[in-house]
């Protein structure tokens, strides 16, 4: 009897513990995903910002030529 009661409370405890564990892992997933996105965005900005500015500038009117971009004068 005592063991059955103990079993019941154990299963209840396990069920009660599963729900918040699900929610916690969903929040954790979201946090991990947003951290991953911010890290990737930082790397992309770090390497890609200046090339992006150069591409936007080279495609604006009047179009400068590549030799003007590379020569030092």
């Amino acid at each position, binding site marked *: 009897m005592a063991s059955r009661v103990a079993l019941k409370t154990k299963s209840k405890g396990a069920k009660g513990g599963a729900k918040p564990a699900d929610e916690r892992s969903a929040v954790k997933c979201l946090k991990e995903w947003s951290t991953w996105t911010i890290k990737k965005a930082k790397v992309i*900005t770090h390497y890609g910002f*200046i090339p992006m*500015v150069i591409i*936007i*500038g*080279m495609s*604006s009117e009047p179009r400068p030529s590549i030799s003007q971009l590379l020569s030092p004068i």
Partner: protein
Amino acid sequence: MATLVPPATNPPPPPSPDSKPAEPEKVDYMDLPCPIPYEEIHRESFMSLKPELFEGLRFDFTKGLNQRFSLSHSVFMGPTEVPSQSAEVIKIPTAHYEFGANFIDPKMMLFGRILTDGRLNARVKCDLSENLTLKANAQLTNEPHMSHGMANFDYKGSDFRTQLQLGNGALFGASYIQSVTPHLALGGEVFWAGQHRKSGIGYAARYNTDKMVATGQVASTGMVALSYVQKVSEKVSLASDFMYNYMSRDVTASLGYDYILRQCRLRGKIDSNGCTAAFLEERLNMGLNFILSAE
């Protein structure tokens, strides 16, 4: 030495309707000028008293490829300060080369600078609509946890401006400034820094006429800053500044002058810490500027 001066990002306020001296003053409270942005409230005194002083040799070359697009190459050799535990300041001689690209459009401005040690300094300013502007700036490094980014959304109304700031490390800020009379503008700001668990609130006031500008700013971080700039003539202006921190009982007062002449601009200041500084910018030739700085 050609230097790149970033363009003024905000238009000057339109002249107030009662600026004619012959007519009696009749203030139209429905038609007040737009105030200057909250972070530029000390603009005149900053321009006179805080020029970009540097130590060493700096050579800037800006090459324009287009009306809107330009590249810049900059070489700097000089001592830089290294934070140290002792009271002495340690200076280490460094040299670096900086490459930059700027794209300036009436609606969008992109500014990027990258140094030889991998640090990127980027600024973006974009007019999303006639009254709403997005400004973002970021300093990215290769070292972990040393990068910063901040984005501002500015909304400009007919006689007020409001700004919302978001930064990394859970930094939030908001500010609002309103023109109360044609000469007086009052504003306030509030910020919250999640990482350092700090928050603060501050108020500012600015009174300007054609000849002088007086500003005052109080913040809950303990800072009180007052400044007064008098335009003595077209070419000369004098500025004074008083900063007091009532938490740490730290007081600094400075006095400075600003001469804007045809070929050069000379700024000098003296501080209550016993520090004098002078900054001379001279146009030697078309496109060649010469700068001398001393502190």
